[in-house]
């Protein structure tokens, strides 16, 4: 099930995407790329358009204006097939609480068309990496929030996706669990086998070597490597850079 991908093709390419809720514009001509081996943080305040963009990438909303290519495949031409290289962790827990960890992962592997032997091997691998294998037969209902989140990440990685998409995955978790998850996902990106798009409004989750995209009012106002962004903006921290960028955008618009 490993998604081999095409050489030099971005794991995801978003081209001139706009989106409207009725007459209100939620996304304004958004274009970005996420490449394999890259941890891309999509940073924005609440209401910036992160969740709308996430829903478009996962095809929960239809992309009427612009185009989204996942590993070179567009929804417009490939339909739901374009979702194949995608691993998704939603902001809200989407595990079945009445099933065990194993049953949840088995169910997902079948949805992804994985065979029995491969499923068993991948469940063992992904859960072991996240230090959850010993809890494989426990009901999800009995796990705490941090452990459930780890299971969700394991599930998203089960079919060896080319792009891992996480929508504010650490919301509501304690500092230690957040750190474990943030570090693990960074390690995954650094392994060079996967691209990561991580939406967040928590700036301490972003590291200096990450690729940073700042979304404000539905528009991308900054896109680059964190160190480059800091230099360009003349800020010492991501928080200061973010505030400066948002303030600058407001002044530009007023």
């Amino acid at each position, binding site marked *: 099930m490993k998604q081999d991908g095409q050489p030099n093709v971005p794991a995801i390419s978003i081209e001139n995407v706009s989106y409207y809720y009725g007459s209100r514009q939620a996304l304004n001509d958004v274009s970005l790329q996420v490449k394999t081996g890259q941890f891309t943080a999509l940073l924005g305040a609440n209401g910036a358009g992160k969740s709308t963009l996430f829903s478009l990438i996962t095809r*929960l909303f239809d992309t009427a204006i612009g185009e989204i290519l996942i590993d070179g495949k567009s929804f417009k031409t490939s339909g*739901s097939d374009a979702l194949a290289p995608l691993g998704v962790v939603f902001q809200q827990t*989407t595990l079945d609480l009445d099933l065990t960890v194993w*049953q949840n992962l088995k169910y*997902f592997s*079948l949805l992804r068309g994985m065979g029995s032997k491969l499923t068993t091997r991948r469940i063992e691998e992904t859960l072991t990496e996240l230090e959850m294998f010993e809890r494989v037969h426990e009901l999800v209902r009995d796990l705490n929030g941090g452990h459930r989140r780890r299971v969700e990440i394991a599930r998203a990685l089960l079919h060896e996706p080319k792009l891992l998409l996480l929508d504010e995955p650490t919301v509501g978790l304690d500092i230690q669990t957040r750190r474990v998850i943030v570090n693990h996902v960074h390690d995954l990106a650094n392994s060079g086998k996967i691209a990561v798009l991580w939406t967040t409004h928590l700036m301490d989750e972003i590291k200096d070597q990450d690729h940073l995209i700042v979304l404000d009012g539905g528009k991308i106002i900054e896109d680059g490597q964190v160190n480059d962004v800091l230099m360009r903006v003349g800020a010492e921290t991501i928080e200061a850079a973010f505030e400066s960028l948002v303030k600058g955008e407001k002044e530009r618009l007023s």
Partner: protein
Amino acid sequence: MINVHMARAFYGIVMREFLRFFQQRARFFSALVRPLIWLLVFSAGWRQTQGLAPYPPYETYIPYEVYMIPGLCAMIQLFNGMQSSLSMIYDREMGSMRVLLTTPLPRWFILLSRLMASVAVSILQVYAFLGIAFLFTYFEVLDLDIDPIGYLTVLPALIVSGFMLGALGMALSSTVKQLENFAGVMNFVIFPMFFISSALFPLWRIKDLSYAFYQFCQYNPFTYAVELIRFALHGQYYGLGALVVCSTALIAFTVAVYSYDPARGMQAQPKGAKRAG
């Protein structure tokens, strides 16, 4: 290759439905207790007042409890169809549906698989009920007199009636925005559908009592599901019933697929918000 994927996904969706069903034991028991109470309590009371003349598919006078069995089978499927729709709304609100919808499978296939999984669960419940009914007859608690071959011939009828009732529930759930609203909708659907039908009284008797009521029953697709099951339990085929049930099922499923919006319940969706088809 894609067919193998679809077959595995279908198996996964059915497996999950059964696992959830067996985890929720209260659901299983309530699914059985409800028709059994009707069978034991109501039929015992009403058999004294109900003289049921021979009328197809019956060739002789029958006890009232024999008449009730097909209606109760359909009732199990009706409740299961609505329960399954409720669970779809729950899954949509809890986000589980998003996991399904972000897999590389067509949306119609996902909804069809969910529907078939629900039909399979409803058939299991009906057979459990029929098994208990068989034991009642064996131990002479009641005289239900179901021909053993009827247990087999009823299966296709149960598949299409379960599909119709599940698709109706799915179509309804597609139009409901929140979980809380659906409980009210269920009350307005389940009870009229069940009571304004031939589940409890034969149509000829209803016609004698009230022609208007009889007309309502005739326009209720649930009546045809009940009659289809009734004929099938006696090894007979009811063509009009099959036609109405299959047509209603197809229309309801098409409406469900067309109107299903995964974004409902996810966030406030102002009017005009576009969704994936």
